[in-house]
């Protein structure tokens, strides 16, 4: 059941899509070389930087994952947003790692690692970044397809077609215009997304009443909905993982770092971080309010287990009136397109710049480099489509995003901090950190699928695995770095 009206809401969505894609295609003429294509010529100023970073970090998958947190944990579900906002503010304020990173004028993180740890570590870092990033991004498309299918009232059989169309729309302007198109469309997408989200949240709060929403949270979730430390299901382990993930992703997530590297100077990069930091609470608070509204409207019995994630889209499909639902779909499409385009170009830049480095050795012409980056973006699009169709997501979406993100966040954050601030760090430590940081989350993902180990893995839980990975990667860096001079001496 949906209020989506194909003539009224459909026209709103088509106008938005046509406008964005036209703008994205129009600016492709300014792409002259690889620097323009991958980093928009390093000319991005404060407000465009804020719009782009905020739009990139809010996609449909994030919205659904965070609404699920709101539905399951109440206001405690906003906790990761507070951790992320704090981390981004501190990093922006102090310039911790981002200052040396931007000052060096590199294109990707692994490029920075080469000076300190050598070419092999650069290559290995590229592989880990792409592996973790693509596994993480792999579920975006399906979540977006599910959201749009439910809200627009399509049959579930059309899910794959919806997913393909979303991807095609984004791939066209990203392949042609690169980061220049991404920044321009991010700006439009931020404005459309924000207007839609603000209207929808205000409407739901007015419709249900804030006090009544709080009453439902009290009745259905109890006191732990307000205190993440008191919750049996949220708890200290998860908060610790939230904080570690927050700092690591602010420092090393390629889509975030590419905004630092695209900024016109280091001061602007730091100001973009400070200015965007409160948005990371918005990123959790707005979907959490939508999740809480869904809990209030449906109660806790209709959506259980793996279906909890469907509560928020079903609420919006049922409650929003004609016209507004078109604005919401445009807003969510905006959120998703900006995320997908930024992610595709971020991973393609690492594949070309770092993984393919032994092949092109930095000697290929701009024309050949551009062509290869475009091919890579297309290939990533195809991978996303196949992975999204194939991978059956189990459990909490936010947990999946954290676990797959940890594959690279743990080791890359350790490498970055060591490269910038720890003189004794060397390639042995770096390789050990990459190995340990990758193997623990991959083991978790594999063992939870194996019948013989499934129960034990569930008992340990993803949070212990995640937290252990960060500390183990740091320990591996220290031990490896100390071991090399010791072995050489003896």
């Amino acid at each position, binding site marked *: 059941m949906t209020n989506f009206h194909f003539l009224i809401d459909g026209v709103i969505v088509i106008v938005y899509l046509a406008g964005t894609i036209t703008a994205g295609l129009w*600016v492709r003429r*300014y792409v*002259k070389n690889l620097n*323009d294509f991958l980093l*928009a*010529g390093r*000319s*991005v*100023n*404060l*407000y*465009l930087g*804020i*719009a782009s970073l905020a739009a990139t970090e809010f996609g449909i998958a994030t919205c659904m994952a965070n609404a699920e947190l709101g539905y399951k944990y109440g*206001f405690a579900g*906003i906790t990761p947003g507070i951790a992320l906002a704090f981390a981004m503010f501190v990093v922006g304020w102090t310039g911790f790692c981002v200052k040396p990173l931007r000052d060096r004028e590199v294109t990707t993180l692994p490029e920075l690692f080469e000076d300190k740890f050598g070419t092999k570590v650069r290559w290995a870092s590229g592989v880990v970044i792409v592996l973790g990033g693509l596994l993480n991004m792999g579920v975006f498309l399906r979540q977006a397809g599910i959201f749009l299918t439910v809200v627009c009232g399509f049959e579930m059989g059309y899910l794959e077609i919806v997913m393909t169309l979303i991807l095609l729309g984004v791939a066209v302007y990203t392949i042609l215009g690169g980061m*220049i198109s991404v*920044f*321009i469309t991010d*700006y439009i997408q*931020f*404005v459309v997304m*924000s*207007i839609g*989200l*603000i209207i929808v*949240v*205000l409407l739901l709060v007015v419709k249900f009443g*804030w006090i009544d929403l*709080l009453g439902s949270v009290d009745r259905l979730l109890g*006191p732990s909905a*307000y*205190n993440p430390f008191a919750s049996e299901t949220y708890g200290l382990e998860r908060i610790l993982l939230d904080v570690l993930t927050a700092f690591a992703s602010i420092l090393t997530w390629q889509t975030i770092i590419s905004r630092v590297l695209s900024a016109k100077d280091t001061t602007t990069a730091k100001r973009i971080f400070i*200015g965007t930091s*409160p*948005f990371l*609470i*918005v990123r959790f*608070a*707005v979907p959490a*309010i939508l999740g809480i509204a869904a809990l209030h409207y449906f109660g806790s019995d209709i959506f259980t287990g793996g279906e909890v994630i469907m509560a928020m889209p079903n609420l919006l499909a049922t409650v929003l009136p004609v016209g507004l639902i078109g604005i919401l779909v445009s807003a969510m499409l905006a959120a998703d397109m900006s995320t997908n385009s930024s992610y595709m170009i971020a991973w393609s830049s690492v594949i070309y710049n770092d993984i393919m480095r032994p092949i092109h050795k930095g000697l290929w012409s701009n024309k050949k480099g551009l062509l290869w980056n475009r091919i890579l973006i297309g290939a990533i699009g195809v991978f996303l489509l196949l992975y999204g169709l194939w991978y059956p997501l189990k459990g909490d979406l936010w947990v999946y995003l954290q676990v797959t993100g940890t594959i690279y966040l743990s080791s890359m954050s350790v490498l970055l901090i060591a490269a910038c601030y720890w003189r004794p760090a060397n390639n042995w430590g770096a390789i050990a950190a990459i190995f340990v940081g990758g193997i623990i989350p991959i083991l978790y993902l594999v063992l939870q699928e194996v019948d013989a180990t499934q129960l034990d893995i569930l008992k340990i839980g993803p949070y212990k695995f995640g937290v252990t990975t960060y500390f183990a990667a740091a320990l591996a860096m220290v031990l490896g770095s100390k071991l090399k001079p010791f072995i050489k001496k003896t």
Partner: protein
Amino acid sequence: MEHWFWSVLCALILVWYIVVTILVAIKGGGDIKNMIAKWKSQI
């Protein structure tokens, strides 16, 4: 007390979001204009 903390946080963050959306919509447009002018001069 905990109700108040989350209620005030949500209210503040929504107000911040509205203000920043307006600010970014206006000033971000200016940033794009300047960037395009710079790119045009380089062609």
